[in-house]
């Protein structure tokens, strides 16, 4: 903690570099994000499970879409955040960047796993298979393994000291997988269908689509809340460790 504060005084341009200021904002933000996320997710899940009609072809399995698609977006969004944190750490030496990267990784991995799991459950009745090695499925599985790699690397690096850059480099390099996931369905013939939702419009009927923004925003808010909680936890742990070291040396 004291090291973090020392860094801050050296670079006063970072508004959130001061952990105290960060904590002052993060504490109420966690509560708000949790509350908003819980309400939006509840509305979206109830809508997806019991309000929308079944699909003309897939029947009831279409309901999985409202969990699967937000999970996929957040799995990829998590690594995007991780890559931004890595960039902040390497270029601007932002003292909270490594903390943010470590906080994001397990949450992003959880959403990626949820995406793979729900996709598999949807694939069995729809395609007739639990798993196929097509471009989209394989690149998404790779994202999960990249998360595992980042979690292991960043944890090992944290134990060795505050100056590690390896995990940040890994975070930036791993971001190359994101466009591969996104464009896999265009570049290659894949079993996975193409994009249903694009900037120009959607091929999902509105009465089937409406819960998606709710689960999308709800999951995102919960994601943010958990990341803030994990960041606060790590800052508190650093503080305890510093205090213990001081007591021990006295």
């Amino acid at each position: 903690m004291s090291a973090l504060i020392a860094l801050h005084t050296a670079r006063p341009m970072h508004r959130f570099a001061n952990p105290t200021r960060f904590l002052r904002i993060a504490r109420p933000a966690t509560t708000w994000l949790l509350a908003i996320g819980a309400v939006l997710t509840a509305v979206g899940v109830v809508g997806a499970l019991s309000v929308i009609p079944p699909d003309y072809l897939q029947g009831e399995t279409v309901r999985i879409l409202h969990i699967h698609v937000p999970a996929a977006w957040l799995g990829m969004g998590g690594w995007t955040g991780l890559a931004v944190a890595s960039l902040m750490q390497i270029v601007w030496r932002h003292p909270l960047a490594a903390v943010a990267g470590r906080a994001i990784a397990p949450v992003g991995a959880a959403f990626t796993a949820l995406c793979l799991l729900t996709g598999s459950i949807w694939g069995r009745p729809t395609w007739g298979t639990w798993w196929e090695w097509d471009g989209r499925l394989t690149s998404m599985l790779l994202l999960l393994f990249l998360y595992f790699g980042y979690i292991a690397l960043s944890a090992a690096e944290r134990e060795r000291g505050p100056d590690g850059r390896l995990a940040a480099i890994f975070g930036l390099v791993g971001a190359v997988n994101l466009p591969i996931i996104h464009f896999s369905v265009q570049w290659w013939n894949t079993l996975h269908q193409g994009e249903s939702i694009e900037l120009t419009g959607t091929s999902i009927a509105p009465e089937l689509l409406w819960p998606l923004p709710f689960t999308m925003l709800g999951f995102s808010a919960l994601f943010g809340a958990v990341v803030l909680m994990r960041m606060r936890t790590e800052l508190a742990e650093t503080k305890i460790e510093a205090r213990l070291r001081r007591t021990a040396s006295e």
Partner: protein
Amino acid sequence: MRVRSKHQRLVLVLLAMMALIGAVLLAMWGLQDRAAYFMTPQDIAAGRAQPGQPLRLGGMVQQGSVDKQADGVTVAFTVYDGPATVPVRFRGILPDLFKENSGVVAEGRLGPDGVFVADNILAKHDERYMPPQMGNVSAERATEQTLAQ
């Protein structure tokens, strides 16, 4: 001094990322054919498939071509993609979503007689989702559009 080194780091990271993305794009471009999950009837018409080699065939099931044979487990149908067609024979259980005018991926081998013998059939779902009453009308319209392309 500090500002310059920060800019140097930024430029360095950007250059490294650009080199990396370039390398990956090259690799993807090289993988284009090999990473394809299936071949289309047009690929087979162009002679890109060796008879007897295991491969996946993907395309649309032609309207009116599905022929369930007398033994009850053998089914024959035609897969098309643009103007090219490939006849397929399959013994086994079809997925629920298998139907005419809808996407399919067949795993198997191309026989010397040009008939694709499938060991496994997967239904390929497209990106359209709609409620049942709308489905019949607009699915046909969308299929016509796909065919027209």
